[in-house]
């Protein structure tokens, strides 16, 4: 008989009751270290169920699975929860982005996979800035407030090893999930929304040197729309909101060719007092 654990996960705009056997729950809990209430009332929004080593996720009348093992179940649950977060973001714009807070201002790092987005967030945290969000950045188009979404940073274990080899990791904890996958848990996090100041667009191009450029909204509108999750509002209204948002903040492309240049550029662009 597996021990069942229940707790409430607080996400921007919603609270979700999660129920799971302890072995998967403890893995999943580590993905959102700042976001648990320590108890749950009412029915579960998401339940993990296990039969031997085969797992399923139940949410409402839907079932996801089969999933092999507690770790895969925890990842699949994370995916479902992130989808729920985006689906319930209301009027806010959901960017595929990480972010940090510096001096009360938010700097988000938007981009596709493998552009150096998560690495950049990690490096900025290691520079002493407060972690604000990972994977999903929810921005209010009126107030420009960026909601904290404190999910741990997911990286390949070998990549995290390379970062630690370049310079020891001091402002976060490395959580190795298995041989290939790891998470980085920042020690310092922003728990309140912060006003958006900059959208950084990282571009990792080994062998191509480093480059920084300030961009006009017209230059990057199609690209940035590609980093937005599908909106919950009328498409034209959504475009207008994204345009106004882009006109209200700085947009900066940062190209680097490796860890050392990335670290150097981030130090110049986002010093301790705020963005340069």
């Amino acid at each position, binding site marked *: 008989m597996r021990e069942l654990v229940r707790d409430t996960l607080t996400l921007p705009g919603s609270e979700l009751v999660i129920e799971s056997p302890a072995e998967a729950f403890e893995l999943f809990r580590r993905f959102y270290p700042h976001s648990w209430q320590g108890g749950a009332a009412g029915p579960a929004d998401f339940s993990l169920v296990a039969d031997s080593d085969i797992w399923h996720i139940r949410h409402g009348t839907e079932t996801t699975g089969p999933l092999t093992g507690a770790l895969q179940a925890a990842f699949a649950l994370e995916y479902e929860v992130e989808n729920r977060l985006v689906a319930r973001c209301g009027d806010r714009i959901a960017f595929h982005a990480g972010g940090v807070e510096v001096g009360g201002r938010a700097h988000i790092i938007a981009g596709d996979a493998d552009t150096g987005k998560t690495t950049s967030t990690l490096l900025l945290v290691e520079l002493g800035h407060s972690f604000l969000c990972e994977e999903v950045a929810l921005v209010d188009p009126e107030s420009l407030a960026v909601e904290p979404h404190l999910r741990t940073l997911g990286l390949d274990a070998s990549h995290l090893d390379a970062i630690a080899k370049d310079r020891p990791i001091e402002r976060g904890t490395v959580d190795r999930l298995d041989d290939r996958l790891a998470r980085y848990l920042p020690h310092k996090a922003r728990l309140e929304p912060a006003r958006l100041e900059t959208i950084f667009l990282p571009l990792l191009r080994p062998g191509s040197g480093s480059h920084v450029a300030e961009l006009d*909204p017209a230059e990057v509108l199609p690209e940035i729309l590609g980093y937005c999750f599908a909106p919950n509002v009328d498409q034209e209204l959504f*475009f207008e909101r994204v345009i106004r948002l*882009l006109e209200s903040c700085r947009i900066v492309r940062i190209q680097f060719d490796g860890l050392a240049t990335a670290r150097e550029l981030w130090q110049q662009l986002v010093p301790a007092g705020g963005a340069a």
Partner: protein
Amino acid sequence: MRYVRSSAATLKTVGSGVAVYVAGRQAIHVLNSTAHLLFEYLAEPASLDELVLALETATRGGSKKIRSDLEAVLGELLDHGIIEPCES
């Protein structure tokens, strides 16, 4: 053939540039300066010859180059539903 701005297309300013939202397709396209100029001219129907003449006057460019550039831009605007052919 004559062309005219699509009634589904709405011009929007974006920073120092402009974009057009096409309602039926729920898409938005950033326009370069030539496309923007064409969009403005095509508030009223015009033929390729008329557009070439108008742009030649506006830019004082060589008509041969303007014609081929315009044909390419018109093709893109048609593909995106920003302008459409018309009879008048």
